[in-house]
């Protein structure tokens, strides 16, 4: 009888390769089926204008409650909307800047929902036929492993529509009531609806930043997220590539770019975990303020606005029909001609003019005022722009970020930095000494570079005899290192140079020092 052996099955060589292969397959398939996030943004940009969209009351950020409210804004009976020409021009300019098709005829609708800060019970908007459709926003961000590669991406814009803002509600939980301030009710908004082309928080934040820069350059919106001038709602879902889109949730009440990226990534993570556990994502609105406004437009009733005829936009004066005065008409050719330099064009111009790398021009345009600072410095120095850029994006920006200052609050004005760089260019100080001087200029604003150089005796030492003496001293006191250099280890030479620089407090001309040391150690 055969003895039954309790031998654990140990796979033989061919079996191992089979197991390995199937493991690889499983890994490959699971990588293919990785859940990815899908992000679509809906952005409300408050139009920068003197008066509201349909009434003549003023638009201001802070004002006594209900002091900027007209009878129409309070939706008293017998009032009618009268469209503001500036708001139309703002929407059309934004559409042109984002490569949209401008609808020559657009129509206003009423979107009905009940909420205390919407006194009329409806909002006048342009759901069906808005003023601009089918645009594209090209945005860039610094990616790659070292975060220094400019990656360009596109997000498609479904439509841009004009609509009214609602009032503000303050929740008084103590007395179980809501206080309504209608100052904001009726202010003109541009709603930008984007296609869900993005996949993570970083991309969304970069897209919004680019939009902010564009709107600020156009002057159509000041884009201040913390003041509510730019409000972003993100629709987030997860799915496996190739499969249909998953259920989406809406993330609202985001008032900074950083928070936007974090909230979106958090939501993608949360949904991924839910799906991986086998659960179902609920279609809901996730906000940190539970008393945010009503749910999305699927639960609102729409009807055409009966008090407003269609909005007509014309190509040029020649195409104006009889009876329409030029002063009354919005002309595309005039607006197109009046578009200012957009951020992407500006970045390209900087690269062309100064020979900068794309990532540098990206940083210059991204930081408010930095490009102007850089150009002002360039005016005052003949130094190579590629060397100046390092000063601006590293030294200056580094210190500004450390102390949380904006460029306009920099203690060192562009002219002073230019002066310092000129001195360096002329050979009066070494680069390490220049950095020290810069630090000192930062600490004591108003002190000019030459003064500091003189005070701290940081002028470049290029006196031959002096340098020889110091180098000799270093060589004599470090025989081991000298021997190492003689035997071929060049790196030790740098150590010797460092020692010399320490002796001279960084004032020695590095080129000369190297030459002398090489002579002495050869």
């Amino acid at each position: 009888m055969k003895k039954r052996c309790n031998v654990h099955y140990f796979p033989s060589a061919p079996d191992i390769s089979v197991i390995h292969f199937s493991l690889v397959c499983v890994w490959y398939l699971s990588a293919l089926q990785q859940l990815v996030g899908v992000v679509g943004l809906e952005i409300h940009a408050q139009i920068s204008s003197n008066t509201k969209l349909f009434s003549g009351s003023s638009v201001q950020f802070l004002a006594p409650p209900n002091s900027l409210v007209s009878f129409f804004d309070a939706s008293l009976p017998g009032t009618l909307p009268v469209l503001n020409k500036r708001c139309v021009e703002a929407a059309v300019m934004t559409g042109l800047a984002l490569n949209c098709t401008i609808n020559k005829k657009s129509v206003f609708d009423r979107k009905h929902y009940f909420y205390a800060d919407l006194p009329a019970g409806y909002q006048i908007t342009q759901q069906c036929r808005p003023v601009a459709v089918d645009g594209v926003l090209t945005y860039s961000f610094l990616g790659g492993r070292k975060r220094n590669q400019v990656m360009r991406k596109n997000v498609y814009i479904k439509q841009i529509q004009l609509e009214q803002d609602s009032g503000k509600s303050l929740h008084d939980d103590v007395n179980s009531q809501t206080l309504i301030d209608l100052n904001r009710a009726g202010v003109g908004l541009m709603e930008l609806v984007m296609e869900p082309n993005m996949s993570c928080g970083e991309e969304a934040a970069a897209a919004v930043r680019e939009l902010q820069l564009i709107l600020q350059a156009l002057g159509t919106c000041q884009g201040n997220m913390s003041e509510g001038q730019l409000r972003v709602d993100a629709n987030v879902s997860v799915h496996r590539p190739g499969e249909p889109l998953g259920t989406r949730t809406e993330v609202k009440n985001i008032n900074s770019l950083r928070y936007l990226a974090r909230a979106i990534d958090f939501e993608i993570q949360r949904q991924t975990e839910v799906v991986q556990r086998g659960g179902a994502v609920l279609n809901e609105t996730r906000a940190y303020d539970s008393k945010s406004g009503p749910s999305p437009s699927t639960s609102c009733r729409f009807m055409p606005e009966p008090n407003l005829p269609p909005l007509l936009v014309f190509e040029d004066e020649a195409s104006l029909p009889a009876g329409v005065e030029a002063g009354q008409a919005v002309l595309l050719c005039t607006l197109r001609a009046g578009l200012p330099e957009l951020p992407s064009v500006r970045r390209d111009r900087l690269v062309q003019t100064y020979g900068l790398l794309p990532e540098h021009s990206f940083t210059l345009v991204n930081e408010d005022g930095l490009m102007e600072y850089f150009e002002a410095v360039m005016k005052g120095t003949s130094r190579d722009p590629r060397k100046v850029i390092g000063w601006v994006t590293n030294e200056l920006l580094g210190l500004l970020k450390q102390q949380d200052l904006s460029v306009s609050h920099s203690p060192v004005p562009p002219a002073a930095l230019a002066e310092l760089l000129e001195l360096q260019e002329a050979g009066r100080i070494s680069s390490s000494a220049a950095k020290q001087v810069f630090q000192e200029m930062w600490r004591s604003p108003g002190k000019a570079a030459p003064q500091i150089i003189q005070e701290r005796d940081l002028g470049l030492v290029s006196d031959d005899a002096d340098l020889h003496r110091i180098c000799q001293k270093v060589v004599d006191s470090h025989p081991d290192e000298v021997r190492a250099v003689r035997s071929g280890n060049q790196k030790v030479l740098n150590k010797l140079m460092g020692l010399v620089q320490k002796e001279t407090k960084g004032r020695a001309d590095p080129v000369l020092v190297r030459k002398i040391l090489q002579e002495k150690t050869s």
Partner: protein
Amino acid sequence: MTKMLAFQTLRVVSLEILGSPCNLLANNVYSITKRCSLISLQSQILRPLSSHQHNPKVPKVPTWEPVPEEQLPQPTKIPADLVDKLERLALVDFRTKQGLECLEKAIRFADLLHVVDTSGVEPMDSVLEDRALYLRDDTVTEGDCAEELLKLAKDTVEEYFVAPPGNIPLPKREERAAILRHSEF
């Protein structure tokens, strides 16, 4: 005979009340006696009470005819879910038998629009679509009337209007059916 008496009374009454020219009324009264159709009788009784002359653009007899059922699409049935959704959107209670019948009749009435042939006709939202939309200058002309506006509200707190807290959600369908059953409707 009684008809003649009725007209005479009307004539007297109308002359006293309205003081309209006598011969005009006389014409109307005599035209009634000539025609003697029930519909025109009703409209002619009313007309002596009106102070305006008969507008020639208004037809003297109704010109419409009821549309046969075959020409209309299927009558719409409204499911309970839709009733619930509409009640939430419009904040109107209409789920009683009477309310639903009224809604169905209204939809049936609107179905008459399907009979009209609109092929080749551009859709229109309003008859004023060809008017120019007036564009206003961006200068401040109104506002600064907080006091006047606040006076219109029942409750105010320090220049703010007062509203109930948040949006009070409607109870679920079953709960609301129970509420309605117990109400007076």
